[in-house]
């Protein structure tokens, strides 16, 4: 006897439709926050001529990391401008920064909660596994249902895909603080907030920053995929090149993404380690 197929697809469809109908104000609220944030970053990056912005970025890279990274940043960004993808790059960076900020704002507190309670950790862990292993494209469909096309669903899909490392490494960083330091903090009569802000978070900072770095890298990769739902940016360049089989253009777009990835990676890594030294 053959069992009938579980109508899982139907259930999910119904579920999404239900959410669409009943949680509309929530999705509108999210859009009202995300869209202006993306726009803000985009205006910020396009506030001056590409040369000025490239110099500013390389200054940030210099303070966060070192001369070599600053040098790479300057020439990488100037190359992107020369290839003619400045505007698309600005869009991509805005999407990444927005997604990263949301991931940190939501992910760090979740990580803290997970570190403080085994129950929360046990609930979160499978959800995070799910978020990370589900093929990234799948998030695009419900994102479109909830947020239509454009930058907002792209950001949301990126957040879902990119947030787990921040949560996991915040949790790990806090749990890794030596137990005798926690004991010391408690023995002197710290409240739990004091213990968190004066001992656990400062000591977990390098680990948390590693998580934030991973989140930024993942959201960059997701933002490129999100061009399929009209998020725009360099992903759109690559997508267009694929559909028209333009190898050269595809390479240019891909190279620009690589440059941005390296710049963002080195800057955030630098921030993590300089914090560690300063601490």
């Amino acid at each position: 006897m053959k069992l009938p197929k579980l109508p899982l697809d139907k259930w999910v469809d119904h579920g999404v439709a239900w959410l669409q109908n009943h949680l509309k104000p929530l999705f509108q609220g999210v859009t009202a926050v995300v869209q202006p944030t993306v726009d803000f970053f985009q205006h910020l990056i396009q506030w001056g001529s590409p040369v000025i912005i490239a110099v500013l970025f390389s200054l940030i890279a210099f303070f966060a990391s070192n001369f070599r990274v600053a040098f790479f940043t300057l020439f990488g960004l100037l190359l992107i401008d020369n290839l003619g993808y400045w505007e698309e790059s600005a869009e991509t960076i805005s999407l990444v920064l927005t997604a990263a900020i949301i991931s940190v704002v939501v992910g760090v507190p979740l990580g803290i909660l997970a570190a403080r309670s085994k129950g929360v950790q046990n609930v979160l862990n499978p959800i995070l596994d799910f978020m990370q292993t589900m093929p990234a494209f799948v998030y695009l469909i419900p994102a479109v249902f909830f947020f239509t096309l454009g930058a907002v669903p792209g950001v949301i899909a990126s957040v879902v895909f990119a947030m787990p490392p921040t949560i996991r490494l915040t949790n790990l960083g806090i749990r890794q603080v030596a137990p005798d330091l926690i004991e010391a903090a408690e023995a002197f009569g710290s409240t739990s907030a004091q213990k968190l802000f004066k001992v656990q978070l400062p000591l977990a900072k390098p680990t948390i920053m590693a998580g934030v770095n991973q989140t930024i890298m993942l959201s960059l990769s997701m933002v490129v995929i999100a061009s399929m739902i009209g998020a725009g940016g360099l992903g759109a360049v690559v997508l267009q090149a694929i559909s028209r089989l333009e190898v050269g253009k595809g390479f240019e777009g891909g190279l620009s993404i690589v440059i941005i990835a390296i710049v963002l990676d080195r800057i955030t890594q630098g921030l993590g380690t300089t914090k560690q030294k300063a601490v």
Partner: protein
Amino acid sequence: MKKIEVKGLTKVFGRNPQKALELLIEGKTKEEILQQTGMTVGVNQASFSVNAGEVFVIMGLSGSGKSTLVRLLNRLIEPTAGSVLLDGEDITRMNRRQLRTMRRTKMSMVFQRFALFPHKSVRENVEYGLEIQGISKKERQEKALESLELVGLKDYADSRTNQLSGGMQQRVGLARAMANDPDILLMDEAFSALDPLIRKDMQDELIDLQANLNKTIVFITHDLDEALRIGDRIALMKDGVIVQVGTPEEILTNPANSYVERFVEDVNLTKVLTAEAVMKRSEVIIWDKEGPRVALQRMKEKGLSSVMVVDRERNFVGILTAEEARKVKEKEKSLEDAVIKDVVTVQLDTPVSELLPLMAEKQFAHPAVVVDENNKLRGVVVKGSVFAALAGNGVNAHETS
């Protein structure tokens, strides 16, 4: 006066501690309960009291429950049963707020592996206990510096803790614990991670600090030598049970059971050792040549609380304490009156077994003086060195004190 009074304090680790508690009351041992229920007894109905201003040593081998016991005193570990009265107030009944206040003001802790915050400077570490009380930056910096001065690390206030040696790090730990000016210091194997020479220095320093500041100290150790050196009273623990509480002398001379006896059997060297073997070279001043200023200077240099007074022929006259020397210096007393002559005086070949009761009779107030047959001063015997020697650590007769 009783500072801490512990009654029936028990800790069981496991799923159903109440059941284990019943079994404990029935008289079952730690091992039987582990076999029967799978639960671990940390501390089994410990009762003792700690007097104000004494150094109370809890000593036992690893796994005896001593570290658990000290954490029950400040409730870093929640007790399963029993009470801890601090100045008559039951700590086990305090709510979180009261508990925090108690930890902030009355009881500080020093840890085996120092537990200094690596992201803070030495001064910030010492400030921590004050910082979390919301004390202004200026005030807590001052207090931190005072506290660092007590342990001789004022110049390292702005260093990173990982730049300091182990001994220095533990001094910072001690300074941090004292910055709150608590009544009680809990010291969990505080010197066990230090190498032997540094450990000895720290023990001496702790004894000095205790004498000056009059803190009540609960000191955990697995080292009998250390227990005998610094303890006013010692509690011996085995399998979570306090086997015996007593002064070092009582523990050595009158072990409560075979376990304690085995523990201290190597120690009973009192009949073999002579005063000569345990004495130390003494610092002297010469009666009619050097005044109280020289005496004070010498004590300060050597970190001593008293010096021996001799005449030009090195005949022993008496002991001059720092306090009395100061009075002489201020012209409140004559040197003649200030010198304490009523001290235990023994010959070089007096066995320690005879020497100890003599010193005990005087409550170990002053070192015993060792003279030769012509009444010339040869050395002094201090309480610590007697017990160190008895603890089988050997004696270094050439060591200066």
